[in-house]
């Protein structure tokens, strides 16, 4: 009998002695026996319940087939931080950093699960919940023989993401190695399942992989706190056979930015030290506060994950495989890893980042960082300020300081632009308009990720020449979707004296957004599909002309492009009654496209016969849909579309 049961029995006996004795001595006949009977029932019920108490078994069952949390190397996890820093803990707790990786649980899983059946890419997935366990029945992805793959059941043990999309990992059965479920759940109110290769820009014929071991080898580097991958080839056959990954904490927790907190927590257990520190208003010296580092070091704390980095040498990689990264915030990130600044699939050809989650790469090329003191924390705050009036959910979306979606982000240094007249003279746009927002010209949405356009995080100036040379949309044409590059180049020359680049006939005569939508690579098409739905662009360009081009993207070979086009189109009149799903067979997608064109053409013919050659609208007094379709088909046939993977 263990200590707990012994204590319960002892306490119950003492209670019985006092309560029962009094009742027995004062009771009569039947009431005495009633009291004794009730007591016996209570005793028996407690004894039964105590030996059958469920949580005990679950809590003590060892987790052997998934990564676990374990404090090592002076890390103590966020659980130790809350006692002294409840406000900071609370803001972090409500952030998407915390929930980037979670153990699968009722609270963590955002998708509807029990009894749900999903079909994606010809495979049926049957989702089931058994108590607090989440299961999926699906085809055996490891099946290599002939005939249909047998059905197997796998236990989902971990999730990734909780803001835009959520992905699910199941135990592979090989140590703590995880495999990725080939369907994912889309959040943000869109609430739908999709195939894994539909979430990103990947060539449509590249096939789907369950990425077995990927979390242990790659994802954990940024999606958990101080991970020890503990991967090795024990028998020397060239393949890893030991997968014993553990992390101090799943998700991005306090110590990811502040470094190991064990010494600090131990030190400040002493209340006299704490109160002495409060009264002296001095900061702790035994832990890193990124907010008090210089702009380079503090940005490196973010850049360790929000940058593209490679190991400085093979030795570092080998050490990482066993015990994780050696870098701790406050040190130089570049001592152990090199920042990558170019490469296909992640950068535009001039070195500007084009995939999301790598904002540090954009920051370090920014003059305000190189020549000034701008850091990630100039705009973003990892803890919502106590006097920030915004709801926590609003803050958690991008974790920006108040006002940082507007010009305050820039005017905290460039104070001259606080003056409305000065700002108007510079921007040539009306005060308060979207064109008067510094960001829209100097940090446009030229990064792709998470099925949307994302700001570049590199402060630059609108440049048509760069668009011609790299294919990257410039700020003018990303907002003025109905204008040509020639129009943008002339405006920039008139207003800012920027030399016009040499443009070909199409670039002079056809709206840039149309060229990028029809002739661009998958990344450009995805950005344009998103821009057609961007509210600022809609205000500047109108929406009445865009459906034919969004319709063309409804039959795009890339799933993600179709998904975004469908989303941008759905609230336009031309999409009324549209029967379309981005994962339909080709014939269904084409039918959807034709339906949009028909809706739009009918309205266009009836209401607007004005010619607009830059929008491919030709007229002879009457709108000619066939001429337009011919031009669209011609541009589509000129598309150079190399297989593109954008590694977000």
């Amino acid at each position, binding site marked *: 009998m263990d200590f707990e049961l012994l204590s*319960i029995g002892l*306490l119950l006996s003492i209670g019985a002695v*006092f309560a*029962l004795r009094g009742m027995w001595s004062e009771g009569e006949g039947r009431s005495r026996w009633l009291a004794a009977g009730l007591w016996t029932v209570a005793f028996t019920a407690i004894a039964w*319940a105590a030996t059958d108490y469920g*949580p005990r078994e*679950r809590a003590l069952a060892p987790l052997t087939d998934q990564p676990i949390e374990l404090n090592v190397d002076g890390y103590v996890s966020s659980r130790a931080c809350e006692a002294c820093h409840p406000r900071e803990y609370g803001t972090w707790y409500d952030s998407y950093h915390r929930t980037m990786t979670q153990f699968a649980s009722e609270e963590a899983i955002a998708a509807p699960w029990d009894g749900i059946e999903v079909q994606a890419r010809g495979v049926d997935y049957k989702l089931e919940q058994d108590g607090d366990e989440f299961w999926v029945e699906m085809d055996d992805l490891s099946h290599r023989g002939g005939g249909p793959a047998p059905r197997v059941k796998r236990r989902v043990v971990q999730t990734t993401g909780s803001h835009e999309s959520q992905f699910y990992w199941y135990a592979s059965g090989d140590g703590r190695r995880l495999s990725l479920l080939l369907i994912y759940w889309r959040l943000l109110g869109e609430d739908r399942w999709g195939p894994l290769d539909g979430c990103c820009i990947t060539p449509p014929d590249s096939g789907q992989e369950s990425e077995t071991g990927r979390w242990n080898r790659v994802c954990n580097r940024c999606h958990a706190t101080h991970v020890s991958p503990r991967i090795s080839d024990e028998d020397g056959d060239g393949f890893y056979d030991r997968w014993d990954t553990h992390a101090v904490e799943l998700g991005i927790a306090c110590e990811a930015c502040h470094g190991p907190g064990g010494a600090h927590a131990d030190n400040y257990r002493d209340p006299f030290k704490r109160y002495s520190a409060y009264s002296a208003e001095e900061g702790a010296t035994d832990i890193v506060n990124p907010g008090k580092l210089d702009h380079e070091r503090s940005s490196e704390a973010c850049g360790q994950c929000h940058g593209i980095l490679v190991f400085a040498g093979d030795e570092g990689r080998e050490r990482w495989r066993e015990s994780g990264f050696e870098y701790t915030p406050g040190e130089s990130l570049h001592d152990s890893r090199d920042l990558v600044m170019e490469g296909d699939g992640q950068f535009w050809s001039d070195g500007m980042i084009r995939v999301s989650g790598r904002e540090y790469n954009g920051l370090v090329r920014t003059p305000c960082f190189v020549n000034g003191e701008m850091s990630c924390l100039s705009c973003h705050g990892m803890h919502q300020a106590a006097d920030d009036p915004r709801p926590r959910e609003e803050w958690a979306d991008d974790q920006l300081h108040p006002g940082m979606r507007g010009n305050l982000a820039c005017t905290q240094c460039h104070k001259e632009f606080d003056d409305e007249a000065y700002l108007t003279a510079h921007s040539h746009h009306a005060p308060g308009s979207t064109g008067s927002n510094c960001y829209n010209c100097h940090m446009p949405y030229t990064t792709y990720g998470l099925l949307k356009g994302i700001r570049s995080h590199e402060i630059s100036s609108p440049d048509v020449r760069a668009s011609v040379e790299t294919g990257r949309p410039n700020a003018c044409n990303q907002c003025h979707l109905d204008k040509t590059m020639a129009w943008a180049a002339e405006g920039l020359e008139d207003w800012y004296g920027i030399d016009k680049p040499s443009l070909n006939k199409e670039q002079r005569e056809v709206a840039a957004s149309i060229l990028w939508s029809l002739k661009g690579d998958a990344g450009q098409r995805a950005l344009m599909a998103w821009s057609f739905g961007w509210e600022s662009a809609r205000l500047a360009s109108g929406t009445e002309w865009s459906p034919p081009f969004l319709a063309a993207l409804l039959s795009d070979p890339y799933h993600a492009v179709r998904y975004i086009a469908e989303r941008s189109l759905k609230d336009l009149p031309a999409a009324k009654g549209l029967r379309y799903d981005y994962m339909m067979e080709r014939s269904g997608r084409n039918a959807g496209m034709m339906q949009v064109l028909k809706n739009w053409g009918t309205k266009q013919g009836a209401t607007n016969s004005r010619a607009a050659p830059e929008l491919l609208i030709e007229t002879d007094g009457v709108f000619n849909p066939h001429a337009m379709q011919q031009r669209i088909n011609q541009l589509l046939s000129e598309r150079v579309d190399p297989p593109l993977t954008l590694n977000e």
Partner: protein
Amino acid sequence: MSKDSKKIKTRDASDGALGAKHLRVGWCFVALYLTMGLCLEVMHGFKVDWYLNVSNETRRLMFTLAHSHGTLLGILHIVFGLTLKGEGASDASWARRAGACLTGAAILLPGGFLLGGVVIYAGDPGRGVLLVPVGAALLLFAVVTTALNLRKN
């Protein structure tokens, strides 16, 4: 002295004894659970992980409940003792039954919370918490018995 008067004298003596007993027990419980409160404050002061770590939130809740219920039941004992003295009801058998149940409740209710916090299972308290409903039933019985019989008197 007749047998009757002897009997009455004995009852008179026990009259004060039951009330005094509950006063004594009540003050003991108040002293015990206020001391426990002091211990909890010390654990706050020294940020003892075993008590304050967020993964031990259940323990913190259980101990807080033990402290508050123990103190409250101690006060209830004192009130019960004063009631018996004021009403001269110590010789009544209901008073002895209610008193016994009150004592049982004072042991099991806060004791159950205390034990439920010593051993915890993640978000669930230890099995000691199973004593709480028994203690609560005893407390209810004691309170209802007292209320009904005082009204009769």
